[in-house]
């Protein structure tokens, strides 16, 4: 599954791990994250993320 990087702080969303701090289960693809989800490191919205090449 694709990883995505926050362009504001460099944090990387790894779908294998999800984001337990916001109730996101492991193996959740980035595209399935709710619009209310934000970068757990810096609070940037989903739109500020870029797919990791």
């Amino acid at each position, binding site marked *: 599954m694709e990883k995505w990087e926050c362009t504001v702080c460099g*944090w990387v969303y790894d779908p294998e791990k999800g984001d337990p701090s916001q109730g996101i289960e492991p193996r959740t693809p980035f595209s399935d994250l709710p619009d209310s989800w934000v970068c757990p*490191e810096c609070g940037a919205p989903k739109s500020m993320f870029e797919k990791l090449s």
Partner: protein
Amino acid sequence: MGGGIAGVTAARRLRALAPKAEILIFEQEPQLYYLRPGLIDLLAGEKKPAELTPFDRNWYESHGISFRPSAQVVELDPGRHTLTLSGGEKMSYAGLILATGADAFRPPVPGASLPGTLTLRSLQDALEIRERAQGARAALVLGGGWLGLETARALRAWKLEVTVVERAPWLLPRQLDRAGGEVLATQLNKLGIEVITGTSCQELRGDGEVREAILTGGRRLPVQLVVIAAGIRPRLGLARQAGLAVNRGVVVDDWLATSAEGVYACGDVAEWQGKVFGIVPAAREQGQIAAANVVEPGSARYRGTVVKNRLKVAGVELVCLGDTQPEGGPGEEHRYASPQEGVYRKLVLRGGKLVGAIVMGDLSGLGEVERLISAGEEVGGELKRLLTGRLG
């Protein structure tokens, strides 16, 4: 050279643009690249180092990037295209990116070398401050900029008495204006952080360890920990030694080329059009551009980064965007304030276009404010609504 966000971003872009190139990153710290901003959470005891490390060993290996920790570059010879590591190892290169970042500035305050007086830049620094915080009752943070305020909140997480001393008449003096600074100070007081502005620290005293701070005006604060957050200084040592043009940072042109052929610079070490940005988004953008120009000189032009800072202090929402004219200026200023609610908003317009904003307390409509600043469109009849956010 340098395995921070600028260096690692540059290496990744190099990999994408030059699939066959051999890519090495030399990093003087003993660990892999980590998220420097996350050090605040580490200091607060909310995160572990592993959570701040986006790429593990396997990742570098599978991307053909050799990341060498504990490898300090001590000499650079741009004429011969060689560099030397602290162990004596010498290497030659085809292209070089200087991404060595910045050091924390230590102002010459008498007593500032007493144990217990620290700065925050590296993982090691964060661990050391955290360790000190365990045995301390009261801490002083010197500097009311972004780093100082976030450090203060991290220390509050350990239930310390925390005082922030800022020399300028208000907090975040390079982005906030006076009225905004006053609203912010009140909000921080509610979190148990004491704020003293227009004051500096004259001396630190102690018998073997820091125990007391003497402020201008004579006030004395008992402290067991002092964190100095008084800004950054680009690491110029190597550039100077190699004869590169330097000013506040290593001087680069619009292609991020330094004065030496084949040497580019990016991130906190670089000075472009007189500016050292000192923020992650600029380091990322510059890293990508430097990499493109190493592969094909002149292929990518840097046009600056819109500065956006967001205060990461739970319970206090604050974002500063673009040119906020902290002390007035050519732009037209519009304000909305409701200090009791911690709300303050200022929009700066030039020629009918939004060029900067301070948004505090209520972040509604922030997305639109941001979009207007980047798009350069005229604001027209939307001004009043943008100014009051949801409250209007």
